[in-house]
């Protein structure tokens, strides 16, 4: 979700026009429109002030990013160094690794 989508969502939920929101935060209506189009990205503090002016708030949460190969990495990372080496040598013996 972009910052523009967050602003628009908060404003519409609050039943405010772009002009209403602009007046509430002492900005121009065109500035609100630029934010909502993502032409301009407000800083985090400004974004929070805009959303709060609509009577809402948001929280930022950090979570572990996942990538397509993570399951493969997890498989080897769960092993001890000795088990990783044994696995690798078994793959070579099985011809599963190009020599």
């Amino acid at each position: 979700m972009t910052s523009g989508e967050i602003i628009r969502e908060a404003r519409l939920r609050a039943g405010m026009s772009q002009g209403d929101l602009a007046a509430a935060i002492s900005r121009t209506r065109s500035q609100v429109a630029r934010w909502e189009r993502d032409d301009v990205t407000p800083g985090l503090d400004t974004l929070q002030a805009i959303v709060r002016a609509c009577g809402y708030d948001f929280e930022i949460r950090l979570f572990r990013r996942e990538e397509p190969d993570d399951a493969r990495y997890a498989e080897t990372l769960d092993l001890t160094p000795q088990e990783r080496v044994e696995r690798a040598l078994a793959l070579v013996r099985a011809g599963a690794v190009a020599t």
Partner: protein
Amino acid sequence: MTAVFDPLEVLRRLDAAGVAYVVVGEFAAVIHGSPDFRPELEIVPQMRESNLQRLRAALDPIAAQPIGDALSPAAAQASGSLRLETPHGPVVVTPEPAGTRGYDDLRRKATREPVARRLRPQVAAVADLIRVLHERGREEDEPRLHALRRIAELTRDEISRPRS
């Protein structure tokens, strides 16, 4: 020479001869958890003449070509990697991997990893393996570089996350 990849046998020879070295490259990545690899053992030896003598004593009997004068303290910076074909698979000896100052540099963050019974070689840190691949700047290394970076991220996360 028909080779059966067995880097552990080479590491045992190096240890028996008292060679000071750090494991880098593909095999180091395997030890750190990389699922993909090329079967070769790459080491960075300490480049003192006495250590190189021990290295020659350990590897010359099994290498298709003796190391001879190909490695010397004076040639450390000039020479690239020396690839030796052995019955236990290829052994690559690299005095100074790209972006590093060789053994003394890599040894600082290296850890002794238990890879087999009574075998705990010094293995370069993931951060140093990344540094070398990054400095080499070879397109073919990109997948390995990506894998090592992700492993670094995942293991950092594992360390920082409290165990339940």
